Protein backbone atom coordinates (compact mmCIF):
# COMPACT_ATOMS: atom_id res chain seq x y z
CA UNK A 1 0.00 0.00 0.00
CA UNK A 2 1.51 3.28 -1.05
CA UNK A 3 0.92 6.94 -1.71
CA UNK A 4 2.17 8.33 -5.01
CA UNK A 5 3.06 12.02 -5.09
CA UNK A 6 2.18 13.61 -8.45
CA UNK A 7 2.94 17.23 -7.54
CA UNK A 8 4.77 18.04 -4.35
CA UNK A 9 3.33 21.51 -3.71
CA UNK A 10 5.20 24.26 -1.87
CA UNK A 11 6.75 22.23 0.96
CA UNK A 12 5.53 18.74 1.82
CA UNK A 13 7.20 16.81 4.63
CA UNK A 14 6.59 13.87 6.92
CA UNK A 15 6.14 15.02 10.52
CA UNK A 16 5.11 13.59 13.86
CA UNK A 17 5.14 15.21 17.31
CA UNK A 18 8.86 15.83 17.12
CA UNK A 19 12.26 14.60 18.17
CA UNK A 20 12.40 15.06 21.94
CA UNK A 21 15.32 14.31 24.26
CA UNK A 22 18.03 15.63 21.96
CA UNK A 23 17.80 19.37 22.61
CA UNK A 24 20.88 19.25 24.86
CA UNK A 25 22.91 18.29 21.78
CA UNK A 26 21.40 21.07 19.69
CA UNK A 27 18.78 19.01 17.85
CA UNK A 28 15.61 21.03 17.19
CA UNK A 29 12.43 19.26 18.33
CA UNK A 30 10.82 19.86 14.94
CA UNK A 31 7.58 18.00 14.30
CA UNK A 32 4.24 19.22 13.00
CA UNK A 33 3.80 22.99 12.97
CA UNK A 34 0.14 22.41 13.95
CA UNK A 35 0.41 19.55 16.45
CA UNK A 36 -3.29 19.75 17.30
CA UNK A 37 -4.34 19.11 13.70
CA UNK A 38 -1.90 16.18 13.47
CA UNK A 39 -3.20 14.61 16.68
CA UNK A 40 -6.88 14.95 15.72
CA UNK A 41 -6.13 13.68 12.20
CA UNK A 42 -4.63 10.53 13.66
CA UNK A 43 -7.56 9.98 16.03
CA UNK A 44 -10.02 10.31 13.11
CA UNK A 45 -8.51 7.30 11.32
CA UNK A 46 -7.97 5.26 14.50
CA UNK A 47 -4.23 5.81 14.88
CA UNK A 48 -2.18 6.62 17.92
CA UNK A 49 -2.22 10.44 18.12
CA UNK A 50 1.58 10.55 17.79
CA UNK A 51 1.71 8.78 14.39
CA UNK A 52 3.53 10.51 11.53
CA UNK A 53 1.44 12.41 8.95
CA UNK A 54 2.19 14.36 5.83
CA UNK A 55 2.31 18.12 6.34
CA UNK A 56 1.41 20.22 3.29
CA UNK A 57 2.16 23.93 3.06
CA UNK A 58 -0.70 25.73 1.33
CA UNK A 59 -1.96 24.41 -2.02
CA UNK A 60 -0.56 22.70 -5.07
CA UNK A 61 0.02 19.10 -4.05
CA UNK A 62 -1.54 16.24 -6.02
CA UNK A 63 -1.39 12.54 -5.18
CA UNK A 64 -3.16 9.19 -5.24
CA UNK A 65 -3.13 6.02 -3.19
CA UNK A 66 -2.29 2.78 -4.97
CA UNK A 67 -4.77 0.86 -2.81
CA UNK A 68 -8.02 1.80 -1.09
CA UNK A 69 -7.25 3.78 2.06
CA UNK A 70 -8.89 5.34 5.11
CA UNK A 71 -7.54 8.86 5.52
CA UNK A 72 -8.33 12.25 7.01
CA UNK A 73 -7.36 15.84 6.28
CA UNK A 74 -7.01 18.30 9.16
CA UNK A 75 -5.64 21.82 9.43
CA UNK A 76 -6.53 24.66 7.05
CA UNK A 77 -5.61 26.47 3.87
CA UNK A 78 -6.92 24.39 0.96
CA UNK A 79 -10.02 22.99 -0.70
CA UNK A 80 -9.60 19.25 -1.14
CA UNK A 81 -10.98 17.20 -4.00
CA UNK A 82 -10.92 13.49 -4.80
CA UNK A 83 -11.52 12.92 -8.52
CA UNK A 84 -12.94 16.45 -8.61
CA UNK A 85 -15.42 15.72 -5.87
CA UNK A 86 -14.99 18.08 -2.88
CA UNK A 87 -14.28 16.47 0.50
CA UNK A 88 -14.22 18.15 3.93
CA UNK A 89 -11.52 18.65 6.53
CA UNK A 90 -11.88 16.97 9.96
CA UNK A 91 -13.70 13.84 8.71
CA UNK A 92 -12.57 10.26 8.16
CA UNK A 93 -12.63 9.49 4.42
CA UNK A 94 -12.43 6.30 2.40
CA UNK A 95 -10.65 6.83 -0.92
CA UNK A 96 -10.44 4.28 -3.66
CA UNK A 97 -7.14 3.42 -5.27
CA UNK A 98 -5.83 5.67 -8.06
CA UNK A 99 -8.35 8.49 -7.44
CA UNK A 100 -6.59 11.82 -7.85
CA UNK A 101 -6.44 13.91 -4.68
CA UNK A 102 -5.81 17.63 -5.26
CA UNK A 103 -5.20 20.46 -2.76
CA UNK A 104 -6.62 23.71 -4.24
CA UNK A 105 -5.84 27.14 -2.76
CA UNK A 106 -8.40 28.79 -0.52
CA UNK A 107 -6.11 31.07 1.57
CA UNK A 108 -7.85 30.44 4.90
CA UNK A 109 -4.79 28.92 6.52
CA UNK A 110 -1.37 27.52 5.78
CA UNK A 111 -0.94 23.87 6.77
CA UNK A 112 -2.85 20.68 6.02
CA UNK A 113 -2.20 17.24 7.50
CA UNK A 114 -2.93 13.95 5.79
CA UNK A 115 -3.28 11.03 8.17
CA UNK A 116 -3.67 7.47 6.95
CA UNK A 117 -4.94 4.47 8.91
CA UNK A 118 -1.87 2.56 10.12
CA UNK A 119 0.49 5.46 9.44
CA UNK A 120 3.29 5.91 6.93
CA UNK A 121 6.11 3.43 6.86
CA UNK A 122 9.33 5.32 7.32
CA UNK A 123 12.14 4.64 9.75
CA UNK A 124 12.58 6.56 12.96
CA UNK A 125 15.81 8.52 13.23
CA UNK A 126 16.66 9.51 16.79
CA UNK A 127 13.25 8.23 17.91
CA UNK A 128 11.14 10.31 15.54
CA UNK A 129 9.83 10.20 11.98
CA UNK A 130 9.88 13.99 11.66
CA UNK A 131 11.81 15.41 8.73
CA UNK A 132 14.62 17.76 9.77
CA UNK A 133 15.61 19.60 6.58
CA UNK A 134 18.68 21.29 8.09
CA UNK A 135 20.35 18.08 9.31
CA UNK A 136 18.78 16.17 6.37
CA UNK A 137 17.44 13.37 8.52
CA UNK A 138 14.16 11.67 9.41
CA UNK A 139 10.96 11.50 7.39
CA UNK A 140 11.45 10.57 3.77
CA UNK A 141 15.25 10.35 3.29
CA UNK A 142 15.63 13.56 5.26
CA UNK A 143 14.06 15.68 2.55
CA UNK A 144 10.81 17.24 1.40
CA UNK A 145 8.60 14.99 -0.72
CA UNK A 146 8.94 15.34 -4.50
CA UNK A 147 6.90 14.36 -7.53
CA UNK A 148 7.07 10.60 -8.18
CA UNK A 149 7.92 9.66 -4.60
CA UNK A 150 6.14 6.50 -3.51
CA UNK A 151 5.53 6.60 0.24
CA UNK A 152 4.72 3.22 1.79
CA UNK A 153 1.98 2.89 4.34
CA UNK A 154 2.35 0.68 7.36
CA UNK A 155 0.34 -2.52 7.01
CA UNK A 156 -0.35 -3.03 10.67
CA UNK A 157 -3.92 -2.02 11.45
CA UNK A 158 -5.24 -1.67 14.99
CA UNK A 159 -8.75 -2.93 15.83
CA UNK A 160 -9.90 0.72 15.83
CA UNK A 161 -8.37 1.24 12.35
CA UNK A 162 -10.25 -1.83 11.15
CA UNK A 163 -13.55 -0.92 12.78
CA UNK A 164 -13.50 2.60 11.29
CA UNK A 165 -12.80 1.07 7.88
CA UNK A 166 -15.54 -1.56 8.20
CA UNK A 167 -18.24 1.11 8.55
CA UNK A 168 -17.54 2.51 5.09
CA UNK A 169 -19.67 1.23 2.22
CA UNK A 170 -17.95 2.83 -0.68
CA UNK A 171 -19.16 2.34 -4.20
CA UNK A 172 -18.00 5.73 -5.43
CA UNK A 173 -14.50 7.26 -5.73
CA UNK A 174 -14.64 8.50 -2.16
CA UNK A 175 -16.88 8.17 0.89
CA UNK A 176 -17.19 10.51 3.83
CA UNK A 177 -17.68 8.92 7.26
CA UNK A 178 -21.25 9.33 8.51
CA UNK A 179 -19.95 10.31 11.94
CA UNK A 180 -18.21 13.59 12.65
CA UNK A 181 -16.49 15.62 15.36
CA UNK A 182 -18.21 18.41 17.24
CA UNK A 183 -17.45 21.66 15.36
CA UNK A 184 -16.09 22.92 18.69
CA UNK A 185 -13.09 20.70 18.01
CA UNK A 186 -11.85 23.08 15.32
CA UNK A 187 -13.83 26.32 15.68
CA UNK A 188 -11.18 27.82 17.96
CA UNK A 189 -9.04 28.39 14.85
CA UNK A 190 -11.27 31.41 14.14
CA UNK A 191 -10.19 33.19 17.34
CA UNK A 192 -9.03 36.66 16.15
CA UNK A 193 -6.09 37.02 18.58
CA UNK A 194 -3.21 34.96 19.94
CA UNK A 195 -2.64 34.63 23.66
CA UNK A 196 0.86 35.14 25.03
CA UNK A 197 2.65 35.19 28.35
CA UNK A 198 5.16 38.02 28.84
CA UNK A 199 8.69 36.83 28.19
CA UNK A 200 11.53 36.84 30.70
CA UNK A 201 13.06 39.96 29.09
CA UNK A 202 9.74 41.83 28.69
CA UNK A 203 11.07 44.61 30.95
CA UNK A 204 14.03 45.16 28.65
CA UNK A 205 11.69 47.00 26.24
CA UNK A 206 10.47 50.58 26.60
CA UNK A 207 6.90 51.44 27.54
CA UNK A 208 5.97 52.61 24.07
CA UNK A 209 7.00 49.26 22.57
CA UNK A 210 5.23 47.33 25.32
CA UNK A 211 2.04 49.28 24.69
CA UNK A 212 2.25 48.73 20.93
CA UNK A 213 2.91 45.02 21.43
CA UNK A 214 -0.59 44.49 22.81
CA UNK A 215 -2.43 47.21 20.89
CA UNK A 216 -1.20 46.86 17.34
CA UNK A 217 -1.33 44.05 14.89
CA UNK A 218 1.78 42.37 13.47
CA UNK A 219 2.21 40.89 10.04
CA UNK A 220 3.93 37.63 9.13
CA UNK A 221 6.67 38.54 6.60
CA UNK A 222 7.76 36.59 3.54
CA UNK A 223 10.89 35.54 5.45
CA UNK A 224 8.97 32.85 7.29
CA UNK A 225 9.32 29.09 7.30
CA UNK A 226 9.20 26.08 9.60
CA UNK A 227 11.99 27.59 11.73
CA UNK A 228 10.03 30.73 12.46
CA UNK A 229 8.31 33.87 11.29
CA UNK A 230 9.66 37.38 11.04
CA UNK A 231 6.91 39.72 12.28
CA UNK A 232 6.47 43.16 10.72
CA UNK A 233 5.10 46.07 12.71
CA UNK A 234 6.17 48.70 15.24
CA UNK A 235 9.86 48.15 16.09
CA UNK A 236 10.43 46.90 19.63
CA UNK A 237 12.86 49.36 21.20
CA UNK A 238 15.03 48.28 24.12
CA UNK A 239 15.73 50.34 27.21
CA UNK A 240 18.16 47.72 28.49
CA UNK A 241 20.85 47.26 25.88
CA UNK A 242 23.06 44.57 27.38
CA UNK A 243 23.63 41.25 25.64
CA UNK A 244 21.61 38.25 26.72
CA UNK A 245 23.74 35.23 27.60
CA UNK A 246 22.58 32.50 25.23
CA UNK A 247 20.00 30.22 26.77
CA UNK A 248 17.21 27.89 25.72
CA UNK A 249 14.41 29.04 23.47
CA UNK A 250 11.42 26.97 22.44
CA UNK A 251 8.55 26.81 19.96
CA UNK A 252 6.40 29.90 20.50
CA UNK A 253 9.21 32.10 21.85
CA UNK A 254 9.17 35.61 20.34
CA UNK A 255 12.70 37.00 20.21
CA UNK A 256 13.64 40.55 19.27
CA UNK A 257 16.62 40.76 16.92
CA UNK A 258 19.11 43.68 16.96
CA UNK A 259 17.17 45.36 14.11
CA UNK A 260 14.22 45.62 16.57
CA UNK A 261 12.14 43.12 14.60
CA UNK A 262 10.31 40.29 16.28
CA UNK A 263 11.00 36.71 15.31
CA UNK A 264 8.52 34.03 16.35
CA UNK A 265 10.21 30.66 16.72
CA UNK A 266 8.29 27.68 15.34
CA UNK A 267 8.88 23.91 15.09
CA UNK A 268 12.35 23.75 13.49
CA UNK A 269 13.79 26.57 15.61
CA UNK A 270 17.25 26.12 17.05
CA UNK A 271 17.41 25.02 20.69
CA UNK A 272 19.24 28.05 22.08
CA UNK A 273 19.23 31.75 21.35
CA UNK A 274 20.87 34.95 22.44
CA UNK A 275 18.18 37.54 21.75
CA UNK A 276 15.81 38.90 24.40
CA UNK A 277 12.51 37.07 24.66
CA UNK A 278 9.64 39.54 24.68
CA UNK A 279 6.83 36.99 24.87
CA UNK A 280 5.87 33.33 24.72
CA UNK A 281 2.85 32.10 22.74
CA UNK A 282 0.50 29.95 24.80
CA UNK A 283 0.69 26.34 23.64
CA UNK A 284 -3.07 26.18 22.97
CA UNK A 285 -2.74 29.04 20.45
CA UNK A 286 0.30 27.60 18.61
CA UNK A 287 -2.04 25.91 16.07
CA UNK A 288 -3.29 29.40 15.16
CA UNK A 289 0.32 30.48 14.58
CA UNK A 290 0.92 27.38 12.46
CA UNK A 291 -1.97 28.42 10.22
CA UNK A 292 -0.67 31.98 9.66
CA UNK A 293 0.82 32.49 6.23
CA UNK A 294 3.05 35.29 4.97
CA UNK A 295 0.97 38.48 4.74
CA UNK A 296 -1.45 37.51 7.51
CA UNK A 297 -1.77 39.79 10.51
CA UNK A 298 -2.48 38.97 14.13
CA UNK A 299 -2.82 40.61 17.54
CA UNK A 300 -1.49 39.47 20.88
CA UNK A 301 -3.47 39.26 24.09
CA UNK A 302 -1.83 38.84 27.48
CA UNK A 303 -2.57 35.94 29.82
CA UNK A 304 -0.72 34.83 32.94
CA UNK A 305 1.48 31.75 33.02
CA UNK A 306 -1.05 30.11 35.33
CA UNK A 307 -3.88 30.77 32.86
CA UNK A 308 -1.71 29.40 30.04
CA UNK A 309 -1.07 26.22 32.00
CA UNK A 310 -4.77 25.82 32.82
CA UNK A 311 -5.72 26.30 29.14
CA UNK A 312 -3.15 23.66 28.23
CA UNK A 313 -4.50 21.18 30.79
CA UNK A 314 -8.08 21.83 29.60
CA UNK A 315 -7.08 21.27 25.97
CA UNK A 316 -5.34 18.02 26.87
CA UNK A 317 -8.47 16.90 28.73
CA UNK A 318 -10.62 17.63 25.67
CA UNK A 319 -8.27 15.58 23.49
CA UNK A 320 -8.32 12.76 26.02
CA UNK A 321 -12.13 12.79 25.92
CA UNK A 322 -12.10 12.78 22.12
CA UNK A 323 -9.73 9.81 22.18
CA UNK A 324 -12.00 7.97 24.64
CA UNK A 325 -15.13 8.74 22.61
CA UNK A 326 -13.61 7.42 19.38
CA UNK A 327 -12.15 4.45 21.24
CA UNK A 328 -15.54 3.52 22.72
CA UNK A 329 -17.47 4.15 19.52
CA UNK A 330 -15.17 1.80 17.59
CA UNK A 331 -14.33 -0.65 20.37
Amino acid at each position, binding site marked *: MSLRIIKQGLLTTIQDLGR*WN*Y*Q*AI*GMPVGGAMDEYALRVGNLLVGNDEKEACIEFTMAGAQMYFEEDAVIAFTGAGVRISVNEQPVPYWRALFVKAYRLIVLHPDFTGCRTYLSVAGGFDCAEVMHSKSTNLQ*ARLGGWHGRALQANDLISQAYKQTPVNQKIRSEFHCTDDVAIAHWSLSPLTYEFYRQPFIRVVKGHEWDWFDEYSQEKFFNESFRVSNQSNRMGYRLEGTPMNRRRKEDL*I*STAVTKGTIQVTPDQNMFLLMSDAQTTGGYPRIAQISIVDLPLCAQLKPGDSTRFKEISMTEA*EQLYLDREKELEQLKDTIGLRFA
Partner: protein
Amino acid sequence: MLAPFSTYFLSEKAIVIQLGSTIDDAIHHQVINLNALLNHEPFEGFIETVPAYNTITIYYDPLPVYHSTAMKGHTAFEKVDNYLQNLVTKLPQNPVIKIKSLSIPVCYDAEMAPDLKWVAKCLNTSIENIIQLHTSSIYTVYMIGFAPGFPYMGRLDSRLSVPRKETPRAKVEPGSVGIAGEQTGIYPFAGPGGWQLIGRTPVTLFDPAKEDPVLLHPGDQVKFTSISREEFYQMQPNPS
Protein backbone atom coordinates in the same frame (compact mmCIF):
# COMPACT_ATOMS: atom_id res chain seq x y z
CA MET B 1 29.71 28.39 47.01
CA LEU B 2 26.58 28.09 44.92
CA ALA B 3 25.92 31.10 42.71
CA PRO B 4 22.69 32.96 43.48
CA PHE B 5 19.93 31.25 41.55
CA SER B 6 16.43 31.98 40.34
CA THR B 7 13.82 30.18 38.26
CA TYR B 8 11.47 31.46 35.59
CA PHE B 9 8.75 30.36 33.16
CA LEU B 10 9.79 29.70 29.56
CA SER B 11 6.63 27.90 28.42
CA GLU B 12 3.88 25.68 29.83
CA LYS B 13 6.34 22.81 29.30
CA ALA B 14 9.60 24.45 30.31
CA ILE B 15 11.13 26.14 33.35
CA VAL B 16 14.56 27.77 33.46
CA ILE B 17 16.92 27.76 36.40
CA GLN B 18 19.49 30.53 36.21
CA LEU B 19 22.73 30.66 38.19
CA GLY B 20 24.33 34.08 38.53
CA SER B 21 24.35 36.51 35.62
CA THR B 22 27.75 36.15 33.96
CA ILE B 23 29.71 33.76 31.77
CA ASP B 24 31.98 32.18 34.34
CA ASP B 25 33.73 28.80 34.50
CA ALA B 26 32.80 28.24 38.15
CA ILE B 27 29.12 28.91 37.41
CA HIS B 28 29.21 26.70 34.35
CA HIS B 29 30.70 23.93 36.44
CA GLN B 30 27.70 24.21 38.78
CA VAL B 31 25.38 24.12 35.76
CA ILE B 32 26.97 20.85 34.64
CA ASN B 33 26.75 19.36 38.15
CA LEU B 34 23.16 20.40 38.66
CA ASN B 35 22.30 19.09 35.20
CA ALA B 36 23.82 15.70 36.09
CA LEU B 37 21.92 15.65 39.38
CA LEU B 38 18.62 16.49 37.63
CA ASN B 39 19.06 13.76 35.05
CA HIS B 40 20.01 11.35 37.79
CA GLU B 41 16.97 12.22 39.93
CA PRO B 42 14.21 13.04 37.43
CA PHE B 43 10.69 13.80 38.65
CA GLU B 44 7.49 12.30 37.27
CA GLY B 45 6.82 14.00 33.92
CA PHE B 46 10.46 15.08 33.39
CA ILE B 47 11.41 15.11 29.69
CA GLU B 48 14.86 16.63 29.19
CA THR B 49 17.26 19.41 30.12
CA VAL B 50 19.17 21.95 28.04
CA PRO B 51 22.25 23.21 29.89
CA ALA B 52 23.76 26.50 28.68
CA TYR B 53 26.29 29.01 30.11
CA ASN B 54 24.45 29.93 33.30
CA THR B 55 21.05 28.31 32.82
CA ILE B 56 19.45 24.89 32.66
CA THR B 57 16.10 24.64 30.93
CA ILE B 58 13.98 21.76 32.14
CA TYR B 59 11.28 20.42 29.79
CA TYR B 60 8.40 18.51 31.33
CA ASP B 61 4.97 17.13 30.54
CA PRO B 62 2.58 19.30 32.61
CA LEU B 63 -0.13 16.62 32.82
CA PRO B 64 1.67 14.03 35.02
CA VAL B 65 3.32 16.83 36.99
CA TYR B 66 -0.05 18.44 37.69
CA HIS B 67 -1.49 15.13 38.90
CA SER B 68 1.61 14.14 40.88
CA THR B 69 1.02 13.79 44.60
CA ALA B 70 4.74 13.58 45.33
CA MET B 71 5.36 17.22 44.36
CA LYS B 72 4.00 20.19 46.28
CA GLY B 73 2.24 23.14 44.64
CA HIS B 74 -1.01 24.27 43.02
CA THR B 75 0.19 24.27 39.41
CA ALA B 76 2.58 22.11 37.42
CA PHE B 77 4.97 25.08 37.28
CA GLU B 78 4.91 25.48 41.07
CA LYS B 79 5.49 21.78 41.56
CA VAL B 80 8.54 21.69 39.31
CA ASP B 81 9.77 24.95 40.82
CA ASN B 82 9.53 23.51 44.36
CA TYR B 83 11.27 20.37 43.22
CA LEU B 84 14.15 22.40 41.79
CA GLN B 85 14.48 24.66 44.86
CA ASN B 86 14.83 21.54 46.96
CA LEU B 87 17.21 19.80 44.57
CA VAL B 88 19.60 22.75 44.47
CA THR B 89 20.16 22.45 48.23
CA LYS B 90 21.30 18.86 47.63
CA LEU B 91 23.99 19.93 45.17
CA PRO B 92 27.27 18.67 46.64
CA GLN B 93 29.89 21.29 47.40
CA ASN B 94 32.65 19.45 45.58
CA PRO B 95 30.93 16.92 43.40
CA VAL B 96 32.94 14.17 41.81
CA ILE B 97 31.76 14.07 38.23
CA LYS B 98 33.60 12.48 35.39
CA ILE B 99 34.96 15.11 33.06
CA LYS B 100 35.57 13.87 29.56
CA SER B 101 38.72 15.19 27.91
CA LEU B 102 39.18 15.00 24.16
CA SER B 103 41.87 15.91 21.73
CA ILE B 104 40.58 17.09 18.36
CA PRO B 105 42.92 17.24 15.35
CA VAL B 106 42.66 20.41 13.27
CA CYS B 107 44.28 21.23 9.97
CA TYR B 108 45.19 24.94 9.85
CA ASP B 109 46.35 24.80 6.21
CA ALA B 110 45.22 27.83 4.17
CA GLU B 111 43.02 25.55 2.06
CA MET B 112 40.98 24.61 5.16
CA ALA B 113 41.12 28.03 6.83
CA PRO B 114 39.56 30.69 4.60
CA ASP B 115 39.71 33.42 7.29
CA LEU B 116 43.09 32.67 8.90
CA LYS B 117 44.96 35.26 6.84
CA TRP B 118 42.35 37.93 7.63
CA VAL B 119 42.46 37.06 11.35
CA ALA B 120 46.26 37.34 11.38
CA LYS B 121 46.06 40.75 9.73
CA CYS B 122 43.26 41.87 12.06
CA LEU B 123 45.25 40.84 15.15
CA ASN B 124 48.53 42.06 13.70
CA THR B 125 50.25 38.75 14.36
CA SER B 126 51.53 35.72 12.47
CA ILE B 127 49.53 32.68 11.37
CA GLU B 128 51.97 30.50 13.36
CA ASN B 129 51.22 32.48 16.51
CA ILE B 130 47.46 32.05 16.02
CA ILE B 131 47.85 28.27 15.64
CA GLN B 132 50.13 28.22 18.68
CA LEU B 133 47.58 30.13 20.80
CA HIS B 134 44.57 28.15 19.56
CA THR B 135 46.21 24.79 20.32
CA SER B 136 47.64 25.72 23.72
CA SER B 137 44.42 26.19 25.73
CA ILE B 138 41.99 23.62 27.08
CA TYR B 139 38.45 24.63 26.22
CA THR B 140 35.23 23.84 28.05
CA VAL B 141 32.15 22.96 26.01
CA TYR B 142 29.66 25.47 27.44
CA MET B 143 26.66 24.37 25.42
CA ILE B 144 25.56 22.73 22.20
CA GLY B 145 23.33 24.91 20.07
CA PHE B 146 22.90 26.72 16.75
CA ALA B 147 22.90 23.35 14.96
CA PRO B 148 22.92 19.69 16.07
CA GLY B 149 26.34 19.01 17.58
CA PHE B 150 27.71 22.58 17.32
CA PRO B 151 29.80 23.17 20.49
CA TYR B 152 30.20 26.64 21.96
CA MET B 153 33.63 26.44 23.61
CA GLY B 154 35.69 28.84 25.67
CA ARG B 155 37.53 30.61 26.77
CA LEU B 156 39.51 31.59 23.81
CA ASP B 157 42.72 33.47 24.59
CA SER B 158 41.71 37.15 24.52
CA ARG B 159 44.61 37.74 22.12
CA LEU B 160 42.56 35.75 19.54
CA SER B 161 39.37 37.73 19.96
CA VAL B 162 37.92 38.84 16.61
CA PRO B 163 34.37 39.87 15.67
CA ARG B 164 32.02 37.64 13.71
CA LYS B 165 31.77 38.17 9.97
CA GLU B 166 29.47 41.06 9.10
CA THR B 167 27.71 38.91 6.53
CA PRO B 168 27.62 35.21 7.34
CA ARG B 169 29.23 32.88 4.82
CA ALA B 170 26.56 31.03 2.80
CA LYS B 171 28.37 27.71 2.93
CA VAL B 172 30.78 26.51 5.58
CA GLU B 173 32.46 23.13 5.06
CA PRO B 174 31.63 20.42 7.63
CA GLY B 175 34.24 20.24 10.40
CA SER B 176 35.23 23.88 9.99
CA VAL B 177 36.68 25.39 13.17
CA GLY B 178 35.62 28.96 13.84
CA ILE B 179 36.38 31.70 16.33
CA ALA B 180 34.26 34.66 17.44
CA GLY B 181 34.75 36.89 20.47
CA GLU B 182 36.15 34.73 23.24
CA GLN B 183 34.69 31.52 21.87
CA THR B 184 35.61 28.81 19.44
CA GLY B 185 33.34 26.26 17.80
CA ILE B 186 33.11 23.56 15.12
CA TYR B 187 30.50 23.39 12.36
CA PRO B 188 29.20 19.79 12.29
CA PHE B 189 27.85 19.97 8.76
CA ALA B 190 27.69 22.20 5.72
CA GLY B 191 25.55 25.30 6.02
CA PRO B 192 25.68 29.02 6.62
CA GLY B 193 27.92 30.40 9.38
CA GLY B 194 29.20 33.72 10.69
CA TRP B 195 32.33 32.77 12.64
CA GLN B 196 35.87 33.36 11.33
CA LEU B 197 37.15 30.02 9.99
CA ILE B 198 40.73 29.20 10.99
CA GLY B 199 40.91 25.45 10.37
CA ARG B 200 39.05 22.23 9.78
CA THR B 201 38.82 18.89 11.59
CA PRO B 202 38.39 15.54 9.81
CA VAL B 203 36.52 14.23 12.87
CA THR B 204 32.75 13.62 12.58
CA LEU B 205 30.85 15.66 15.17
CA PHE B 206 27.34 14.49 14.41
CA ASP B 207 26.17 11.05 13.30
CA PRO B 208 22.41 10.47 13.66
CA ALA B 209 22.84 6.70 13.19
CA LYS B 210 24.76 6.40 16.45
CA GLU B 211 23.10 5.77 19.81
CA ASP B 212 24.83 8.92 21.03
CA PRO B 213 24.83 11.06 17.87
CA VAL B 214 27.34 13.70 18.98
CA LEU B 215 31.03 13.73 19.81
CA LEU B 216 30.88 16.57 22.32
CA HIS B 217 28.61 17.28 25.28
CA PRO B 218 28.29 20.26 27.61
CA GLY B 219 31.06 20.13 30.21
CA ASP B 220 33.59 18.25 28.04
CA GLN B 221 37.19 19.54 27.94
CA VAL B 222 38.72 19.95 24.48
CA LYS B 223 42.25 20.51 23.25
CA PHE B 224 43.11 21.07 19.60
CA THR B 225 46.17 19.55 17.95
CA SER B 226 47.57 20.75 14.65
CA ILE B 227 47.72 18.28 11.74
CA SER B 228 48.96 18.55 8.16
CA ARG B 229 46.85 18.49 4.99
CA GLU B 230 48.05 14.94 4.30
CA GLU B 231 46.99 13.77 7.77
CA PHE B 232 43.64 15.52 7.32
CA TYR B 233 42.88 13.60 4.13
CA GLN B 234 44.07 10.32 5.66
CA MET B 235 41.74 10.78 8.62
CA GLN B 236 38.71 12.10 6.78
CA PRO B 237 36.11 9.32 6.58
CA ASN B 238 34.13 10.85 3.72
CA PRO B 239 36.35 13.09 1.60
CA SER B 240 34.24 15.83 0.06
